[in-house]
């Protein structure tokens, strides 16, 4: 099983096509990015502070755990941005990263 989140209802919406790290994925109109990514995978991005992966936490735009980026470098909170047709998402931080410990 590849997804972390599980869809329970509202599955009759039109599909939206986007890319995540170069791979095409299909989402549903009205999905937030976190839902689009975590119904198909287990994490959103690499932690900038340790070797762990991150998958969001508060889902209300406060905790800053769910950052992803567009190919052009725009930084988005995956919990509060919706999918758009043709969106090209990158899950690796394009800016400088902290040195990892351990």
């Amino acid at each position, binding site marked *: 099983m590849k*997804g*972390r989140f599980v869809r329970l209802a*509202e599955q009759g*919406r039109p599909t939206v096509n986007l890319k995540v790290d170069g791979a095409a994925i299909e989402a549903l109109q*009205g999905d*937030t990015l976190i839902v689009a990514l975590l119904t198909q995978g287990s994490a959103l991005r690499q932690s900038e502070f340790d070797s762990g992966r991150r998958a*969001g936490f508060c*889902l*209300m735009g406060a905790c800053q755990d769910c950052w992803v980026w567009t190919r052009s470098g725009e930084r988005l909170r995956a919990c*509060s941005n919706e999918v758009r047709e043709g969106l090209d998402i990158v899950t690796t931080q394009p800016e400088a990263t902290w040195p990892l410990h351990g």
Partner: protein
Amino acid sequence: MATARLSSNKVVIVGAGPAGIRCAETLVAAGLKPILIDENRRDGGQIYRRQPEGFTRDYATLYGTEAGKARDLHQSFDRLRGSIDYRPDTLVWNLTPGQLCCVSQGKHTTVDYDALILCTGATDRLMPIEGWQLAGTYSLGGAQIALKSQAVSIGHSVVFMGSGPLLYLVASQYVKAGAKVAAVLDTSPLSKRILAMPKTAGASGIAVHRDETIGAAVSGENPGTPRDQTSASAGRRGKRCQWRAGQHGARGKPDDQLRCRGPGLSPAPGNAIGGPGRLSPAFR
């Protein structure tokens, strides 16, 4: 007189939840046109959060016993919208005397004000335990938002832990929506639960473990691998108990640790933490 003087001034409300909407309603009734700034794309705030356009679940499904209040609030906002300066998708990140610093669609803006009313609401009070930072653990409020706003569960099998009525409310909402709830671990003391009992009845079919002191949460980062387990360890009144989540509805038995693990929790886990809980000494 005061109103006449104020009407030429800029009144700014931050937050379009219940407080912000009712505030705007009162100001509009007094002849003012407030600016209503909100970080969300839609009005309603968190408790009465509106699902995205195109979603079809009805008010009773989304809000349960609060359906009437939710509908009333949303209708109030819809009536108001033409009479206020509504600015959704706008984050306020700083305020200085007479000016707010905002960001919207990645761009910085400022908003001047003569009077400022903050209706910014509340967020979860979290109970940090060992492992709470692992991918797959979410705040209780976050777990509810996933369901209410997006019709998803945070995992294939979810353990709710913490205290307070929201713990049971969210767990029962998950069950009603068809999610698999492996357990509810309640850390509140008996006296508090008795007081809350009339409002917390009804979460059926879920293993409920009460009076728990939660030690640690372990959440799988790689669904499908042996590490993919959601577990919580807890001690019960100095003793510990063991429980396997695969046994739906099973109660704990005294043992070294309360562990929630096994096939019932694979492949993709979810934990939702609500607080405040009582932490075991090792984690204080």
